[in-house]
């Protein structure tokens, strides 16, 4: 079973996203900020990361740049998930190494569609 790390400082968003991603037959791991997520990745690289942008301690963009420099850090498919959804922010996320981008708010259909686009399902 593929593993997906869900990174968001909102417990509610993590919970909703976990259920949706779980329905897509992923094992789900959760982190509340980028630093926690990076530690989890060092223990075991996930197949996918659903990643919020604005978070305390370490934001999504900083996490992404750090992850891509880690050994094995090129492997996870990164799906950004943010309310920062103008073209400039989206382009910045893609340049930093994101594979897909979900504009919040999302629903189950959007997550599924984006996971399909990213080749995850």
């Amino acid at each position: 079973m593929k593993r997906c790390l869900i990174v968001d400082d909102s417990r509610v968003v993590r919970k909703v996203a976990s259920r949706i991603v779980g329905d897509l037959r992923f094992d789900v791991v959760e982190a509340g900020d980028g630093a926690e997520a990076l530690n989890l990745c060092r223990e075991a690289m996930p197949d996918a990361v659903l990643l919020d942008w604005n978070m305390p301690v370490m934001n999504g963009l900083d996490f992404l740049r750090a992850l891509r420099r880690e050994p094995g850090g090129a492997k996870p498919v990164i799906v950004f998930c943010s309310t920062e959804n103008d073209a400039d922010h989206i382009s910045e996320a893609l340049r930093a190494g994101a594979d897909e981008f979900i504009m919040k708010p999302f629903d189950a259909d959007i997550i599924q569609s984006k996971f399909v686009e990213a080749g995850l399902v």
Partner: protein
Amino acid sequence: MIESTFQEFADLARRVSGQTFAPGKAYLIVARLQPIARREGFATLEDLAACLKARPNPVFENEIAAALVSKRTEFFRDRATLARIVSDVLPVAAETPARSKLRVWVAGGGPGQEAFSLVMLLNEARPVALEDIPIDILSTDLSKAATERARSGAFGHFEVQKGLSIHRLLANFTRQDDGQWRVNDELRRQISFRQHNLLEDMEGLGEFDVVLCRNVLGDMVESARAHVLKALSARLAPGGHVFFGDEETGVAGLGAGPLEASEIFQGGFKARRSSAVQAA
């Protein structure tokens, strides 16, 4: 909604668009017409029906029939079929001697996702065989509102996140101040959008190498479907193809398997494998 009102709207749908409603589907009529009734100031659908009866109005009836049709679509739906049209079907059509251009018709194209998807594919990877030949794309729909929306090319937050990769979104759309995403001009210029009812005369539209009529005919009463199939096939250029929805293969007249069966007839009635069409 009382039974006689259901019957009146079901009759209107059948007459205007050929759509048929099974007896248990009254709730669909309620859900789809409630917004119009409210907007027009009718307290109930009974009042709306009474008004239509007392004061027949073809434009309003057409709007109601269009609201009752509920084609749900998304960008790149049935994408393998779209890819095949671009990579195989159109290049073969382009080889026909003396062809100065190719024509594609999206019949029942709603607000335009199918036509826009096709144009995106053509722009991303235009086969060599299509490099020197212009391709006209026409997208028509019963609904005036859908046709106007297609012309505007504006899509909402949820629409642009279903079927579209973020790369395609950024490459082909521009975000508007109101949060909607608008298809870029150079794509919109490649498509003509027109309001058209498939039950009405279509000879004036000319001939087409490819017709996409996907997830449109499945809800039609059989006589209307047979009529449209015959009329569509008469619009095909020699060697032309019609494509139906990938999920419509069980519908009488629309073929019995995926992909190859969805191109069920070529030029007139030289059917590959649909006896239903030949009988029509």
